[in-house]
């Protein structure tokens, strides 16, 4: 402290340069700042109101809301609600299961596609493919769901039977009964197809930013495309690609309509991905909402809150990864 004080005697403190903005600018800045805060306000309100509505159910169920897997509303003879139990675990398992299948199938295809677009496709072919894949990212989930149900289901059922036939000794590929339609496997495939354009677009953007001088250095040392990509592009893009995959994961976990359409939503924990039963949190909300009484609506709000927080965390991690690794490299 003394040192600092001594110094301040010798060296003048920097002058503070202040400009008082004119009134019109003060108003302008105030309005823009308020508008800029809207995302904060909206996200805060979502968390707040879903908590308020879900509070009663969460208070009763406490932690068993996410650990138990029983979702029941029992009515007595007069049709009044006698007893209700709400546990989301089965649907949480289903959410993760379908989303992980989507990641495992979709991400390798997306990353290799991005490599193709960045380092193999050229000129107008590249432009066309990039536009086409970006367009696919804008397709509504309803379309993916119906296409999955009408077109993909038949082939996917056949693939599921093959998997079961040759890999059935692995527990998750076993089935309790030979029902291969509308399984988590098929929902996962539809979700994979939905996230491929998203993950491809992000990976491609990151690969495109790979510093040219490093790529040149590798080629000047006699590298082939493969060894250049391994030595330069992958170390540079790895974090961003993981971030892109997380973004895809968040999208897959929150998907409603497509999963509802292709999956046989049954309230049970089902680890056997080829068996036609399962669900996810979002599709449960859609399924139950129509005939839900006030009590169950509250429970669905609580389920919405859990889903909201889950996707928020996944998106936060993805955003951090993309921003940290997308800009600096290494």
């Amino acid at each position, binding site marked *: 402290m003394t040192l600092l004080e001594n110094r301040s005697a010798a060296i003048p403190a920097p002058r503070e340069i202040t400009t008082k903005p004119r009134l019109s600018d003060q108003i302008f800045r105030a309005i823009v700042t308020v508008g800029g805060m809207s995302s904060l306000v909206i996200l805060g309100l979502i968390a707040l109101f879903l908590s308020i509505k879900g509070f009663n159910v969460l208070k009763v169920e406490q932690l068993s809301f996410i650990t138990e897997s029983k979702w029941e509303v029992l009515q007595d003879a007069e049709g009044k609600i006698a007893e209700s139990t709400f546990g989301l675990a089965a649907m949480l398992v289903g959410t993760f299961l379908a989303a992980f299948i989507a990641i495992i199938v979709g991400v390798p295809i997306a990353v290799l596609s991005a490599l193709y677009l960045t380092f193999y496709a*050229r*000129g107008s072919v590249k432009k066309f493919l990039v536009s086409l894949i970006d367009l696919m990212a804008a397709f509504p989930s309803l379309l993916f769901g119906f296409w999955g149900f009408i077109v993909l289901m038949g082939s996917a059922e056949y693939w599921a039977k093959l998997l079961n036939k040759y890999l059935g000794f692995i527990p998750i590929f076993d089935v309790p009964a030979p029902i291969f339609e509308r399984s988590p496997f098929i929902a996962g495939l539809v979700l994979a197809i939905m996230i491929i354009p998203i993950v491809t677009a992000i990976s491609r953007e990151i690969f495109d930013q790979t*510093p040219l*001088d*490093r790529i*040149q*250095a*590798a*080629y*000047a*040392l*006699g*590298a*082939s495309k493969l*060894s*250049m990509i391994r*030595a*330069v592009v992958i*170390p*540079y893009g790895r974090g961003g690609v993981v971030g892109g995959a997380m973004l895809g994961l968040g999208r897959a976990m929150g998907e409603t309509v497509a999963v509802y359409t292709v999956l046989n939503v049954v309230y049970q924990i089902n680890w056997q991905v080829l068996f036609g039963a399962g669900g996810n949190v979002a599709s449960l909300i859609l399924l139950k909402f129509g005939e839900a009484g006030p009590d169950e609506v509250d429970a669905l709000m609580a389920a919405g809150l859990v889903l909201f927080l889950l996707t928020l965390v996944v998106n936060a991690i993805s955003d951090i990864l993309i921003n940290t690794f997308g800009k600096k*490299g*290494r």
Partner: protein
Amino acid sequence: MQATTPSSLASVANNREQRVPGTNLLGTGLETRGVHAWFGKKHVLSDVSLDFAAGTVTALIGPSGCGKSTYLRTLNRMHEFIPTAALAGEVLLDGQDIYAAGTDVTKIRLKVGMVFQKPNPFPSMTIGENVLSGLKLAQLKKSNTDELLESCLVRAGLWSEVKDRLSEHGGALSGGQQQRLCIARSLAVEPQVLLMDEPCSALDPGSTFRIEETISELAKSMTIVIVTHNMQQAARVSDYTAFFLSDGGPGVMVETAPTSKIFSSPTDKRTEDYVTGRFG
């Protein structure tokens, strides 16, 4: 920069030991025959024929945009890295056209190494890994990588500075050290020819001096072609100098001669104007 007169540059050039082609058994070196280069429709380089005798240092000088860097990049086929690039003519390495059909471009780049303007070590690799990265990239098998690592760093004049920190990342070095690391990296694949594209333009005078020392050392065992904006550097390090110029059209090679002659008695008026600092 201090004022340069032809005579002072010529004396610099005369003071250094002159290497004479043919006295060194390093193969027949590199020759180009009528090289033209284009980017899209733009003709950027016209009809350059030059010989780089084995074991000599040749400097390519000339004002910006005269095509000297483009020419340098045709010598190890980095020219085609730019999508719209095109070319005509022949580049002969040991008598073989490196652009002949069926030539493996990666093999050419192993024989003709390159050092870039900006130091570009691989940031994800350590210093040691950087030096040996060429082996991994070109998938060459070498025993005794420790010896190779040491000899490359010694030849690049960096060994004493980094021998205790080989497992640190390349980015921790100073700019000049990074550039010498890049030179060491090029040496690890044992090229016959080393191309240098303004290797000192991003460096301070001290680092520049160290790099020039390194170049003189390396010239004992390989052929070096260096593009430089700095005429004093050309005078200090090169045996031969080629002057490039563009009058708005494609760049041409105006004159080539032993360095001392270029700086003392150039045949072409434009060369004289340039080396005396009347333009450029």
